[in-house]
């Protein structure tokens, strides 16, 4: 969940305007009586989108393998020693900046495209009346796929709970949506390796499922803000509009436009920090703080990460640099998950519907889950 729309302006020091998780990728619902396709869906631009996408994909594949040799060649022409800290940092920036931006465009496009098959309304319908257990598994999985932005967290919460989605199942959704972040997943896959990406996906879903189950079993309905129980949800029928392939491709591009234009500066910032770590932080010092033997570094990473908020695309280049330098994978990933899954602005938004006690339990359970994952990762990846 991103805090793109936190109107409360209570942004912490490390606040980045994050990609609003596919907010423009919603299925536009048409309220017309008999749901005739709008004229727009047959716009003359349909073919153009398709051709542009195919050309773009070919260009992407052709350029990508050349990024590293190009970056190395550029550094070789600069009057700096490649082996010096400055040379190291420069090589990192010149290679990573185009690489991460290209990956980001591809990931955001794919996410926007596939998310056009899902909507919050459909998800709610699928989850209504589901029991704890299977409901949590479904909610966590749908949480990854459903386009959703934190400005919708409260309406979504009200909508789910009043439609008969159990509280524990709703929590599984609310945890999975930000925790298993598609940008984080894609960048981990490309920058760190598929094993790590798959393990992150599995652990992220597990935390969302288990935490939701525990929260459901605790029966904390009484800890909602009192007015929430009295909310009467209206009924509305938004007829699903049939989207064509061109519509979905267009949805992919519009999320690229929306998200990349918003986060590119933060990506650059993350790569800058990554480059500094790469070039200037002594390896021995880093290992003594974030290495496998520093057992306390996992809880420290979680505690520091929870109130912080940064988008996955900012944090991943930093993660990459830390791992290159020998930081323990579990420690670094626990930090990343804490940063992107739990944040102060999100809690402030949720305070509208949850009591502080309930938020504390929520943060506690998710925090413990991330802690466990951190230690597990450190055990699994030697």
């Amino acid at each position, binding site marked *: 969940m991103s805090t793109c729309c936190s109107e409360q302006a209570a942004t912490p020091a490390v606040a980045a305007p994050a990609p609003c998780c596919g907010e423009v*990728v919603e299925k536009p619902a048409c309220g*017309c009586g008999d749901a005739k396709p709008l004229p727009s869906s047959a716009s003359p631009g349909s073919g153009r989108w398709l051709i542009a996408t195919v050309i773009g994909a070919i260009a992407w594949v052709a350029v990508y393998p050349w990024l590293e040799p190009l970056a190395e060649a550029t550094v070789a022409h600069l009057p700096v020693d490649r082996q010096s800290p400055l040379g190291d940092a420069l090589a990192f920036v010149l290679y990573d900046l185009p690489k991460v931006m290209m990956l980001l465009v591809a990931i955001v496009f794919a996410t926007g495209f596939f998310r056009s098959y899902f909507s919050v*309304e459909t998800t709610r319908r699928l989850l209504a009346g589901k029991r704890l257990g299977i409901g949590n598994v479904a909610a966590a999985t749908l949480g990854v796929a459903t386009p959703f932005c934190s400005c919708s967290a409260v309406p979504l919460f009200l909508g789910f709970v009043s439609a008969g989605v159990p509280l524990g199942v709703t929590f599984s959704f609310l945890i999975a949506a930000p925790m298993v972040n598609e940008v984080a997943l894609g960048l981990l896959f490309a920058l760190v390796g598929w094993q790590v990406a798959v393990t992150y996906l599995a652990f992220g879903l597990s935390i969302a499922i288990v935490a939701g189950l525990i929260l459901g079993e605790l029966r904390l309905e009484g800890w909602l803000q009192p007015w929430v129980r009295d909310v009467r949800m209206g009924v509305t029928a938004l007829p699903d509009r049939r989207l064509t392939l061109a519509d979905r491709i267009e949805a992919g591009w519009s999320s690229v436009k929306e998200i990349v234009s918003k986060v590119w500066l933060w990506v650059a910032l993350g790569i800058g920090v990554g480059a500094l770590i790469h070039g200037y932080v002594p390896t021995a010092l880093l290992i003594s703080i974030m290495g496998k033997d520093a057992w306390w570094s996992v809880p420290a990473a979680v505690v520091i990460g929870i109130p912080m908020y940064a988008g996955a695309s900012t944090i991943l280049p930093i993660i990459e640099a830390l791992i290159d330098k020998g930081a323990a994978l579990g420690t670094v990933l626990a930090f990343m998950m804490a940063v992107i899954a739990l944040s102060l602005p999100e809690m402030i938004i949720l305070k509208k519907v949850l009591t502080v006690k309930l938020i504390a339990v929520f943060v506690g359970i998710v925090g413990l889950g991330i802690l466990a994952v951190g230690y597990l990762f450190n055990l699994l990846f030697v």
Partner: protein
Amino acid sequence: MKDIKVLGSGCPTCQKTAELLKAEADKLGVAISLEKVTDYAAIASYGIAATPGVVIDGKVVHAGGLPKAADVDGWLRGSDGSFP
């Protein structure tokens, strides 16, 4: 006169949605009264779970994300939500 409500907590996308509706209405020369509904209970009463939502003459036509300009034109042109 079309009665238009934008449902949302005042997030940037909700603002953009309201601006888009106003701009398109001006372009088409359709008279509208635009109201922003920010109260969560009131938003819920319209039955949507994603914001911003758009309600035209009491009918929910959109939920979640910035609507497309072409769709907005369609809502504004239709007298009762259907196309002339």
